[in-house]
């Protein structure tokens, strides 16, 4: 009996934490998304009662006149940051730093990793200092004397460039670490064999190394898609969806704005929850598509040795 109980005893702390802070809130958000709970009716509305549930929030989302703007912003933000930085640049850095002197490569990766461990507010303040208007902004004070640019606040003139750069610089370090360790784990014999077979370095990368990165590529792409879909802190701190109306507002930021800021004098918890639920569904659909596209089943298939 004691032996059977032991696993549950060891699991219980985590089970309690995950239940309290993940599963219960998840269910609550899902229920809330069908109610119109907000600051004004808090304590009055019986949000747990099915009588108060409706699809109104979801209708509101899809009929919102900024719906297409927000969806478009989200797609552009996720696709550009993911392809150019989180996967693309990560792969390029990983390949370069694993094909140069080992120590130099390692040092470069350590440097590139620094923004990830810098507090996000400090990190965004640095970008704001870069983007500031002339004569304070670093970029403007360099470009100004050269006669380039208008000297205006760059977050107002080119907000997307800064949002994608600020996110991409951090985002790339995740894939960089995974890809470079995966590249270094490729048996050296494959690389030697490829060279002896007559391949150039580029051909070896193309035909031998990249195929070996299929699994980390799938993982980084999936993980970073979900991560980018739900990330809004950098955007909130940089532009807070501005400078124009909804100009850089993405889905996750909308959910935050609706649910937790009193832009219109109240915080619409139910409506915000509905935005979040749709985002979660989008995330799940994306993950399933990735697994299909990358043929996850084949990646984990058992070998079929039938004779020795």
């Amino acid at each position, binding site marked *: 009996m004691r032996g059977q109980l032991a696993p549950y005893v060891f699991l219980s702390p985590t089970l309690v934490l995950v239940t309290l802070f993940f599963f219960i809130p998840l269910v609550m958000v899902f229920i809330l998304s069908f109610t119109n709970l907000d600051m004004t009716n808090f304590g009055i509305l019986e949000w747990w009662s099915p009588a108060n549930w409706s699809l109104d929030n979801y209708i509101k989302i899809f009929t919102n006149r900024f719906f297409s703007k927000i969806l478009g912003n989200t797609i552009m933000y996720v696709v550009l940051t993911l392809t150019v930085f989180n996967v693309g640049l990560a792969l390029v850095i990983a390949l370069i730093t694993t094909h140069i002197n080992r120590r130099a490569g390692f040092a470069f990766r350590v440097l590139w990793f620094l923004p990830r461990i810098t507090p996000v507010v400090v990190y965004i303040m640095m970008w704001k200092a870069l983007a500031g208007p002339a004569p304070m902004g670093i970029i403007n004070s360099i470009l100004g004397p050269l006669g380039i640019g208008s000297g205006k606040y760059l977050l107002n003139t080119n907000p997307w460039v800064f949002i994608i750069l600020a996110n991409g610089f951090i985002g790339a370090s995740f894939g960089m670490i995974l890809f470079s360790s995966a590249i270094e784990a490729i*048996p050296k*014999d494959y690389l*030697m*064999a*490829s*060279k*002896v077979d*007559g391949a150039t370095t580029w051909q070896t990368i193309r035909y031998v190394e990249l195929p*070996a990165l299929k699994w980390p590529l799938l993982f980084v792409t999936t993980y970073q898609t979900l991560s980018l879909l739900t990330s809004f802190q950098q955007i909130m701190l940089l532009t807070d969806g501005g400078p124009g109306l909804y100009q850089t507002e993405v889905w996750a930021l909308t959910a935050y704005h609706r649910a937790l800021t009193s832009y219109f004098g109240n915080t619409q918890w139910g409506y915000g929850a509905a935005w979040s639920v749709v985002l979660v569904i989008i995330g799940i659909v994306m993950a399933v598509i990735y697994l299909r596209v990358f043929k996850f089943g084949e990646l984990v298939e058992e*070998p079929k040795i039938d004779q020795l």
Partner: protein
Amino acid sequence: MKITIKALCKLFGKVKAVDNLALEIRDGEFVALLGPSGCGKTTTLLMLAGIYKPSSGSIRFGEKVINHLTPKERNIGMVFQSYALYPHMTTFDNISYPLKLKKVHKKEMMKRVQATADMMGIGELLDRKPAELSGGQQQRVAVARALVKEPAILLFDEPLSNLDAKLRLRMRGEIKRLQESLGVTSVYVTHDQVEAMTMASRIAVMNFGVLQTYGSPNQLYDHPDTVFVAGFIGAPPMNFLEMRFEERDDGFYLGSQALEIRIPDERGAQAKQNDVPQRVIMGSRPEDVSVVAERDGDFKAEVYLIEPLGREDLVTFRFDSEEIRALTPAPFHGQIGETMSLKLDKEKVHLFNPETKVSVLRSGNGGSS
């Protein structure tokens, strides 16, 4: 393609992996680089392949120095111990890879891959991935991939180490026959002296990055240049005993507390000519030690261990805190602890200088290069 290696050195930091190596491999020859692990044989092979750049010295293919050519420009094929088959490619893709890189026309490529695969007996397995092949099949794919571009030189890096004993024996014969029929100059790295002896036309024995000796299997077996070579080549290994060398009026003698033997005059004279020291290391192979009747014996020893090998029994004898092993016809008639008379074949006694560990029976400056 003839290979000429001159004064070749390879340093890793301060470690000399290959030290002043000189070697000449004739066109079409099958040469084995033999030595214990860490002796520099694989480093030498990788320099031939162009993976490592030599620190100094030169490598010539034919008359051309190829030190700084990339592997791509060397026209070599190589078989690795791990086979190094690309796991995501089918057998066909693996074998055709060198041709694809050479941009060989598709039709020609199909033909050559099929022909090479058929020759290796894997023509039916072209659509399988390496994980779906047995060790022996993977080995054949690896050889096929090395052969398909018709290289001028074939390099083997312990290709049989990962196979089980029976398959290893078979692949040993197949590779040897294949090399003979194709006539491709081949360099074969191994730590297994039986493999080297059976396959190679000449063997280069290396130790600590230094070439010990270079010669045909029989030459190395019958006239080893150094104690290392004598002990490394041949299984079970040669017996070594420390002896006194004496020249008397009637001939040359080797003596110790337990035994005294007279060695043939020509051996003694040769040793004398090579400035043999007072004390020498005498080497005698187990098959040259025989159990005889008491009156014919050179010395007596006690049976310590009997190891039946089937056709013969390997018997370890002890005398005077020394050990000597003898290969005797099976079955061995003797008990552990029994004292028996032993005789050495004096025609096949080897003598080495205990300081330099070099043979004192070498004629002129022959043997080692």
